[in-house]
């Protein structure tokens, strides 16, 4: 177990090193003068040179690479080099809570839809419940979130006027409902199929038959014995899907005009501010790697049968 943990941790470090290197190289390939694109062509040469010095653009590539590692390790993810000494992390600190709020709410919505339908489908395979939820799941996976969002807005904010418009300045839970349904729909489809197949798998195993033969009631077998085992692979999928939530949030934040990491990234792309683009991409990728590492470790805790020392 300990060997696995160490190996898994080292592998993640390798991936992180690769991510940092890849992002560094990619951003250096951007054509044109980054300083002119941040300040504008008309900026004074003095200002341009000052920014160039601050960003270290005149340094050799190896020094720039080392300095990016410095920024990653000290957690600033790079300085914006404006008068106030703001770093990318300062920007992210304001953006991340909103994105996390959206991602977590979407996760809750996805589970609320997927869990009952997935379990019902597995208990009655090929019934109308199963068939209907299978189609629903596929629709959920296929509907583009940048279309579902506006459609939900038309129905619930404009026609029914039941939920606030993104521009209305209303915050809180009611403003979170439509964005999280939009972001959670695809995940709920995937989770539903996953819960169904995993539970079906467990229900055919010997220990379930033994429990039934011993006279344990069916609901108890499902609830206490089957579900507990069936949910283990679902946990892994959740970890992997966290990334889909993060990248989906970029689109949903645009649809609902929510501040967040996605909005920060898109604004930086529009303003050609490569320091912020680099920082946002790094942040999302590193967060994703970390969550996957944690999921893998959790996997071992949840399911002691798993042997890592292979």
């Amino acid at each position, binding site marked *: 177990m300990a060997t696995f943990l160490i190996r898994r941790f080292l*592998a993640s470090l*390798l*991936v*992180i090193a*690769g*991510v940092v290197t*890849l*992002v560094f190289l*990619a*951003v250096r*390939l*951007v*054509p*044109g003068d980054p300083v002119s694109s941040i300040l504008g062509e008309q900026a004074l040469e003095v200002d341009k040179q000052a920014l160039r010095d601050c960003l270290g653009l005149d340094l050799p590539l190896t020094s720039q690479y080392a300095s990016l590692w410095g920024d990653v390790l000290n957690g600033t993810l790079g300085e914006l080099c404006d008068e106030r000494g703001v770093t990318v992390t300062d920007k992210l600190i304001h953006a991340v809570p909103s994105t996390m709020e959206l991602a977590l709410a979407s996760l809750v919505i996805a589970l609320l839809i997927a869990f009952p339908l997935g379990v019902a489908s597995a208990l009655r*395979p090929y019934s109308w419940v*199963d*068939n209907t939820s*299978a*189609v629903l799941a*596929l*629709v959920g*996976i*296929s*509907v*583009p979130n*940048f*279309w579902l969002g*506006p*459609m939900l*807005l*038309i129905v619930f904010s*404009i026609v029914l006027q039941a939920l606030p418009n993104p521009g209305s300045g209303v915050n809180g839970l009611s403003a979170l409902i439509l964005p999280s349904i939009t972001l959670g729909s695809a995940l709920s489809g995937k989770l539903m*199929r996953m819960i*169904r*197949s995993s539970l*079906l798998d467990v229900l055919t195993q010997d220990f379930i038959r033994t429990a039934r033969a011993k006279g344990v009631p069916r609901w108890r077998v499902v609830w206490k014995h089957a579900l507990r085992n069936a949910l283990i692979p679902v946990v892994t999928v959740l970890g992997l899907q*966290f*990334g*889909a939530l*993060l*990248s*989906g949030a*970029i*689109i949903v934040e*645009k*649809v609902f005009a929510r501040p967040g990491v996605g909005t920060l*990234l*898109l604004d930086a*792309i*529009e303003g050609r501010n*490569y320091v912020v*683009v680099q920082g946002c*991409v790094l942040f*999302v*990728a590193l967060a*994703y*790697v970390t969550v996957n590492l944690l999921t893998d470790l959790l996997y071992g805790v949840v399911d002691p049968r798993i042997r890592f020392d292979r």
Partner: protein
Amino acid sequence: MRGLAPVGATIVGLVLLVAIFGPFFAPYPLDLLDVTKQLEPPSAAHWFGTDENGSDVFTQMIYGTRVAAIVGVSTVAVCLFVGVLLGSISGFMGGWFDEAIMRLTEILMAFPGILLAILVIFVTQEPSLLAVVGALSLTGWSGYARLVRGQVLLEREREYVEAARALGFGTGRILIRHVLPNVFGPVIVQATFGVAGAILAEASLSFLGLGPQGQPSWGALLDQGATYFLLTPYLAIFPGLAIMMTVLGINFLGDGLRDALDPRSQET
């Protein structure tokens, strides 16, 4: 879920027909702008209405079908070529090559969803159709490589490979003529879902303003439609429906193919 594969195949067939022949039957030229007819609702003359430039939305959607088909098919073609090549060599040869390719796929997979594609488009600064296909392929091949590698690892231990070796066949011949045909089932299934994923990803990029410029992409139409959706909801409804129906059709087809070609991964 049975019986939906024919529905999926019909939708996919229709989309392909429109992509290939649609532009010949488009009611208006693609570049026709008529400022006297801005944002008109659907009518007999303009089935899906007109956009902010007075352009016919139906015509743009027909051309958009071609963009979606080109991006979907060529992205998956590139991914398949690179993924199958590297994955099969990785699985069959093992060793340092395998290690290197697997670490590389892990790094690429650390960028969730369209994040790396967004970065690539930002880097090229001039999103063309080619740049979008390239950006999506850059991350996309890794999934195929891992799948093929896994399958090849299973196959290479089988007796027929040993028999082929005993007969003195070379590695390349065994891999191409004997092993690869046996791993294609799951790969074709994944490629089908991959087309849907690429179409959705292209539409997402276009919606974010990072799609192929100057092309009538469904996602770009939807982005434009979303700007006016309070005023003219149909501008967003039709392109969105086109994306959803196409992706749904491909997913139906993929599910059917999985049941037929890849019995091991069947859901029950």
